[in-house]
């Protein structure tokens, strides 16, 4: 737990500032959270994705609100209204491409954010709730993205919705009622489109709510850092502003530049061409695939081709797919290691990178047909996926001999810079330095 509980250093100077502070100290909260808030001094760029994600949530909501002004959630008009946005609405093409590619980059950032959390053990006590809140955000993002993908009412929208809602029928007794509830009928149609539009508009605000809880939990426990050692003294930290602010801003702009390249120069690269064909319930596309960010789970779904006792292959696949997401929720209790960061866990580090490669491989398998050697590979890859969480995490923590940990963040930083510079640089009190400037 952060030993450095920061006492409010905010002192309003203006009359208005004092008046507000005495009644509802929101400026104080903001100041303490985003200016004076101490962050470990050794955070690397892997720690910038949280900020990037919050900006992407804002981009998605802003562009989405504008799109909703022109979009028509009606099965006969939805596709045309999207084309109307693309052709006739002023800057409509920009809003639409920003929104569409924004979803892809939102997921890219969230995956990097999750992998960073796994690598540095960010989920360990006392940050279990912080991690679980993150998992909830991820789940909400998946639901939002899926429903958003249905809205343009292209071929892939329609058939993707048909396939995904079809998963629920695998569950005995409750499956079909759930599917009918989702669809608002017996097949994907106008009621489906309308409820998906409504929910697609609602869920981002729920995400925003959980993000607030996520940031709250983060600011209670403080951030982890690459060493995984808790903050022990003032020299271990720097104030959020200017240190983290400027670093986050730089990473954000670089990330936005890559995003902008896709928005302006390759806006359809990450999408599927079939979604420029209006939905046709009578014509099945040759190849129904989800967006890339769902492909690993799609591969896991299709890897289960055998019955397990009373569980049919279909139900088994659906259970495996949902479990692949839900297993993230119990990661804090699966990992038995006392050492937090992979930096000091040579074996965990190896298995982590194997897990990353395996996840990408699963994604590739998800884009391939479920037949022949691909099925066997998907089964192996699925086993590795679950093996990492259910076997490697608990066992490794008990048998692995971690490397020697530094005594503090400051010591780790100075050890490293002594190694790279040869000479030991002066150790300044960064907060004091920041205050002076």
């Amino acid at each position, binding site marked *: 737990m952060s030993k450095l509980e920061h006492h409010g250093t905010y002192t309003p100077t203006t009359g208005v500032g004092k008046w507000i502070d005495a009644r509802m100290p929101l400026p104080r909260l903001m100041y303490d959270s985003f200016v004076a808030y101490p962050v470990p001094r050794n955070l690397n760029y892997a720690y910038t994705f949280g900020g990037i994600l919050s900006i992407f949530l804002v981009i998605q909501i802003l562009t989405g609100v504008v799109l909703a002004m022109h979009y028509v959630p009606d099965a006969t008009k939805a596709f045309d209204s999207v084309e109307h946005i693309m052709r006739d609405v002023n800057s409509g093409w920009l809003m639409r491409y920003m929104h569409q590619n924004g979803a892809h980059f939102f997921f890219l950032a969230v995956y990097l954010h999750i992998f960073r959390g796994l690598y540095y053990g960010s989920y360990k006590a006392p940050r279990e709730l912080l991690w679980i809140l993150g998992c909830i955000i991820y789940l909400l993002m998946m639901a939002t993205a899926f429903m958003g993908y249905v809205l343009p009412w292209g071929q892939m929208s329609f058939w993707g919705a048909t396939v995904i809602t079809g998963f629920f029928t695998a569950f005995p007794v409750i499956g079909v009622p759930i599917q009918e509830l989702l669809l608002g009928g017996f097949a994907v149609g106008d009621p489906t489109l309308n409820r998906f539009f409504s929910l697609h508009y609602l869920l981002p605000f729920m995400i925003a709510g959980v993000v607030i809880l996520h940031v709250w939990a983060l600011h209670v426990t403080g951030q982890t850092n690459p060493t995984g050692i808790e903050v022990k003294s003032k020299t271990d930290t720097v104030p959020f502003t200017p240190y983290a602010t*400027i670093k986050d801003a730089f990473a954000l702009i670089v990330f936005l530049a890559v995003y902008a390249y896709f928005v302006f120069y390759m806006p359809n690269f990450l999408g599927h061409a079939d979604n420029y064909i209006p939905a046709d319930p009578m014509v099945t596309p040759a190849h129904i695939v989800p967006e890339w960010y769902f492909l690993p789970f799609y591969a896991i779904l299709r890897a289960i081709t055998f019955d397990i006792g009373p569980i049919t292959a279909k139900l088994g696949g659906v259970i495996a797919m949902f479990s692949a997401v839900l297993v993230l929720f119990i990661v804090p209790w699966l990992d038995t290691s006392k050492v937090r960061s992979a930096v000091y866990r040579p074996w965990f580090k190896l298995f982590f990178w194997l897990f990353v490669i395996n996840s990408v491989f699963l994604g590739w398998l998800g884009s391939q047909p479920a037949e022949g050697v691909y099925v066997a590979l998907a089964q192996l890859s699925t086993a590795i996926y679950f093996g990492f969480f259910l076997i490697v995490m608990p066992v490794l923590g008990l048998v692995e001999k971690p490397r020697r940990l530094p005594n503090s963040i400051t010591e780790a930083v*100075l050890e490293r810079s002594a190694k790279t510079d040869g000479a030991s640089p002066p150790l300044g009190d*960064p907060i004091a330095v920041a205050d002076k400037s």
Partner: protein
Amino acid sequence: MKNLVVKLGAAAIAATVMVTGAWAASAYPKNKPREQDWSFAGPFGMYDPAQLQRGLKVYAENCSACHALSRVSFRNLADLGYSDDQIKAFAANYEVEDGPDDFGDMFFRPATAADAFPSPFPNQEAARAANGGAYPPDLSLMAKARAPIRGFPAFVLDPFRNYAENGPDYIYSLLTGYKDDVPEDVSVPEGLWYNPYFASGTALAMAPPLFDDMHEFDDGTEATVSNMAKDVAAFLMWTAEPHMDDRKQLGFRVLVFLLIFAALLYLSKKQVWSRVEH
């Protein structure tokens, strides 16, 4: 009813698995599209209005006999460099249905700039009936709605070489890809035409639509099949993505801004962090 829904759901999943399975077994198109040089390729690529005008001519005099272009309005042709008067005159060649009039009757009138290109058939059934059961699709979005699988490593390399012309390459390859000599392992059903570039089979219902010298272009461009195919493919890229020029021009400004901003932030970050070992 419940039973039916269960079966439908099961069928949907089964169909998905089978369909995705069948995909590899039938990896169409047989031949990958041939990459062409496009004026609008690359980060600074822009449409060539003269080429789009020639493409419009090919569409209007050939394709439009069967294919609709319903998302394009005559007023959009201003992008091709036509004046308002030229557009009005061009639109007036087309008849569109309007109404009801004061007596409740529908009537035909010459099209205006505000009208969309009228479709050759009143509905899909009429289109099928006139085309031996095959439906000639609307071409408005064709250049974005067809993208043969790029495969590995091409799909990884594409962003680095800014390759986004898969659609027009496909259209060009299809229009110039008809072959008379059918390979032995391919059977072409009666009434279909062999084309190894077709996205969803080896043969399609559309007969080879272009022949040398079938048009005369005002600018003296030779009316070879290759030239016409290229012009109409470029035209269809414009119909699918009319704001591409704006998009790339704005993109350049946005990226220059972001890169300068990033450089300044990097220097600021270096300055700020130089106060502390990290």
